[in-house]
């Protein structure tokens, strides 16, 4: 969609917007809970914060059906290939939220065992600081991602 001039441009834009809207409203999450952040991710899904409001309570155990991978927790050197593999198994379009200090940069564990930032392994769309980020911080990250998705075009 390089050229979007003329009357069809409007249609295409509407089409893009509509599809992106569905994507933001129905972003199914791959369960990639690793450590502390996973517990907060669960808490985000629980009654007090309710991820379901975003249509996101559908945690898919199978990465094939997931749109979003929330890397929740520290990624060890041993886990990194698995992470990459789960990412590869997800079908396009897919997004990654790096939740928490450990996933984003290694956090306070600046040592031999951890991958210092999950963006060394998979492309990350949104970083959520916090250790662990509270449910609302995570939701802010999700909203940031939704903004990002809405502003982009359909890639496929």
């Amino acid at each position, binding site marked *: 969609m390089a050229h979007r001039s003329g009357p069809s441009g409007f249609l295409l834009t509407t089409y893009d917007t509509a599809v992106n809207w569905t994507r933001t409203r129905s972003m199914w999450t791959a369960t990639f809970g690793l450590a502390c952040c996973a517990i907060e991710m669960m808490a985000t899904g629980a009654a007090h914060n309710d991820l379901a409001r975003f249509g996101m309570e559908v945690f898919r155990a199978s990465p094939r059906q997931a749109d979003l991978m929330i890397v929740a927790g520290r990624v060890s*050197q041993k886990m990194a290939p698995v992470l990459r593999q789960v990412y590869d198994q997800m079908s396009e379009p897919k997004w990654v939220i790096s939740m928490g200090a450990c996933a984003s940069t*290694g956090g306070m564990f600046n040592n031999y*065992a951890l991958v210092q930032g999950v963006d060394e392994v998979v492309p990350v769309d949104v970083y959520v600081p916090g250790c662990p980020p509270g449910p609302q911080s995570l939701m802010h990250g999700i909203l940031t991602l939704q903004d990002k998705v809405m502003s982009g075009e359909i890639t496929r």
Partner: protein
Amino acid sequence: MSIYSSLADAFPSVEFEKVLDPPQDVAHVPAADYPEFVAAAKTAGFDVFADLCGVDYLRRDPRFEVVLNLLSYSESARLRIRVGVPAADPKLASITDLFPGANFYEREAFDLFGVVFEGHPDLTRIVLPDDWEGHPLRKDYAVGSVPVRFKESPKAQ
């Protein structure tokens, strides 16, 4: 406490040391006596396996030490067993036949310190990938930290 003294009588080569906080005994066991001592401790009542870990006293001889914690439910007593392991030949008998619970702990000590437990059924790396080089909890193994990223710090440039 009789449970300690009976052990002390049986093993004159073992040095006992009293610790007050928390009250318990620490046994300094020569590596040669280690499995027999553990077996004796088990029969003496310390039949619960609690903990096993390695320590690297870099500049001391023997350089490594394996620390074993046993527990007695009946006497509410603890026993800490410290065994020196020389750096040149870091080998120690495995006690997995006495305490199956030592299995993972010995693997961990092997993984992180390189202490080889002879007679262990499956002495492989446990927490680190199999192809890892080195034993990270040794003192001569670097922490492996990377510089923290800043905008204006000299390292970030």
